[in-house]
């Protein structure tokens, strides 16, 4: 149905406060794009610019090849689900869902059909004549989604739609949204969240926002397996990737790093001869660490263990900054207080210099 193209989009408040810059993004029809990033990085602002609620102060936004910078929100073919749901409190569920169609002067029959179809899809039929205040959080959320569906938009925009729900409902609704997307393969969706689990599970592509711009765009697994920067590496995945300082001692197809903490790391990231002596951060995800008797990347004393059943988390004594974390499969008892050596498959060892991955030079 629709593709979206953002070119050099920027947002400046009051002529001086720059919130976003150099946003270039090509969103294809049928994609579910997730914007993630820390709080305050401008996710909502970017979404609201696409919706037309916020003026685009630089660059262009195209929907279906037509520039829409100055097109009013209602004519952009978008629908938005707000974080607070923004249901009209004085209207019943039915009126909430039909409001846009009434404004658009659709026929009575047509309105009723659309509302009933959406209500059926979202299991809202028993609640059609209730006011929003008589609904639970999850039901309100579905009404908000229903209100978008009836308009049959080209692009759905979601701004942290699950953040007001409790943990169990959040998982359930996340799955519902995934199913909704599957039932509407042609609809484009843009979804904002600061929760990386939501991002990983829902997205066809994730856009990581940081530092007023886009840090990286890619499929969830691309971001997980080949992050282009320390920021993305630590943002995607939980617990966050460990970063350990070292110096390159051997270059080539396999790079060997002498760790400042004493061990040796091997990585399948290729390096050039002149990289020898380069100071790097070796990145290893907690789940990629394995115990070792010989070669090791990291050696430390286990401070705390958390046995979660299927995995055991090891928190090593921190000397400065965040503790190094290991996530071992299965149950490991009696490690607390022990010195443990950890290593990892060279294919899973990341190398960063100055915050950027050596893969992306």
């Amino acid at each position, binding site marked *: 149905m629709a593709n979206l193209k953002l070119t050099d989009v920027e947002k400046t408040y009051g002529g001086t406060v720059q919130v976003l810059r150099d946003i270039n993004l090509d969103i294809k029809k049928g994609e579910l794009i997730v914007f993630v990033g820390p709080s305050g990085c401008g996710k909502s602002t970017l979404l609201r610019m696409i*919706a*037309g*609620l916020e003026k685009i102060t630089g660059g262009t936004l195209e929907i279906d090849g037509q520039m829409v910078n100055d097109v*009013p*929100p*209602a*004519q952009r073919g*978008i*629908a*938005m689900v*707000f*974080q*607070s749901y*923004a*249901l*009209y*409190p*004085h*209207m019943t569920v039915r009126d909430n869902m039909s*409001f*846009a169609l009434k*404004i*658009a002067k659709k026929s009575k029959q047509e309105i009723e059909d659309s509302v009933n179809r959406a209500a059926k899809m979202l299991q809202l039929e028993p609640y059609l004549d209730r006011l929003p205040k008589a609904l639970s959080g999850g039901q309100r959320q579905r009404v908000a989604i229903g*209100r978008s569906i009836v*308009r049959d938009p080209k692009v759905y925009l979601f701004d942290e739609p699950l953040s007001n729900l409790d943990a169990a409902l959040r998982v359930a609704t996340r799955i519902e949204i995934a199913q909704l997307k599957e039932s509407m393969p042609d609809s484009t969706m843009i979804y904002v969240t600061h929760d990386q689990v939501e991002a990983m599970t829902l997205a066809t592509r994730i856009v990581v926002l940081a530092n007023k711009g886009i840090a990286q765009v890619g499929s969830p697994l691309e971001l997980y397996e080949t992050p282009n920067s320390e920021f993305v590496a630590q943002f995607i995945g939980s617990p966050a990737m460990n970063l350990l300082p070292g110096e390159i001692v051997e270059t080539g197809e396999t790079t060997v790093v002498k760790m400042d903490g004493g061990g040796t790391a091997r990585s399948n990231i290729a390096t050039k001869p002149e990289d020898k002596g380069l100071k790097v951060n070796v990145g290893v995800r907690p789940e990629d660490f394995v115990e070792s008797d010989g070669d090791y990347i990291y050696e430390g004393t286990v401070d705390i263990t958390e046995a979660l059943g299927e995995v055991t988390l090891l928190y090593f004594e921190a000397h400065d900054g965040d503790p190094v974390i290991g996530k071992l499969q299965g149950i490991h008892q009696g490690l607390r207080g022990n010195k443990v050596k950890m290593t990892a498959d060279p294919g899973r060892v990341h190398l960063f210099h100055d915050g950027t991955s050596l893969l992306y030079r």
Partner: protein
Amino acid sequence: MSPVVQGIITIILGVGGCAAYFYASNLVLDKVIFPPRNDDHGRNINRANIVRPWLFVAPAIFFLGLYLVYPVVGSFFRSLYNRSGNTFIGLGNYTQMFSEEGFRVALFNNILWVIFVPASATFLGLLVAQLTDRLKWGNIAKSLIFMPMAISFVGASLIWKFVYANNPDIGIINAVRDFFGLNPIDVLQIPFWNNFFIMFILVWIQTGFAMVILSAALRGIPEETIEAAIIDGANPFQIFFKIKIPQIAPTIVVVWTTITILVLKVFDIVYAMTGGNFDTEILPSYMMDYMFRDDGRATAVAFVIMIIVTPVMVWNIVQARREMR
């Protein structure tokens, strides 16, 4: 003694007296009536806590009873007696009153007031509140519109006497007429319509009140519901009438009924503008006319006014409560 010293002493005695009352009464309750001692320890604390709220509302109930309930009941009985207050004449005052042309005019005018003033003041207040909401100089405009609230009704009437003055050098209406070569007229003597010129003074005063309350209510509407309506394609008028007004409807009712109650009490404006002449009498001013002469009719008028006010007031309180929830 200078008035300042007197004032200060009164304040000290008043506030001190209140503090002493609350302190002493609570002390008596806790130490003497329900002392938390021996076996009755917990039960006595609970009983004291049930009684305690009454200690706090008791003075208010007492004074309200003395100055409100007693006069109401007293007036009612008085309205059943003749002027000298010694002969019971049943509903004589009422039948006498309803049979009189002057009363019917006052009642009719009062109905006009009750319809026109609250409606106009609320409408204008809402309009100003909405229009000034996003203006840089909105707050200045609001202050100006609010200012008449600070003027007494008599003061305001005097100002408007000048505005309506017959002399084109003083009154603006006649100045405008004069400019177009028309003869001056006294708007306060135009039959029927003179009422509206007088009512407008109260509208002028009360618009500020409506504006302040409704402006706060408009600000309280969640911004996202308005954004959702924008995305749904509503134009500014639709947003105002279909999204904003329904959300502040309870506040509108409270403002409307509050002004209605006020209207039913106003007598000074009519008194200062026309003295009730030219068929501009309304019930309160009609009552004032009879207060010091003729028969015991004034209390009967007061009662009619009260009967009209009561349902409005009940509705007002119900709405205000609902809004608070």
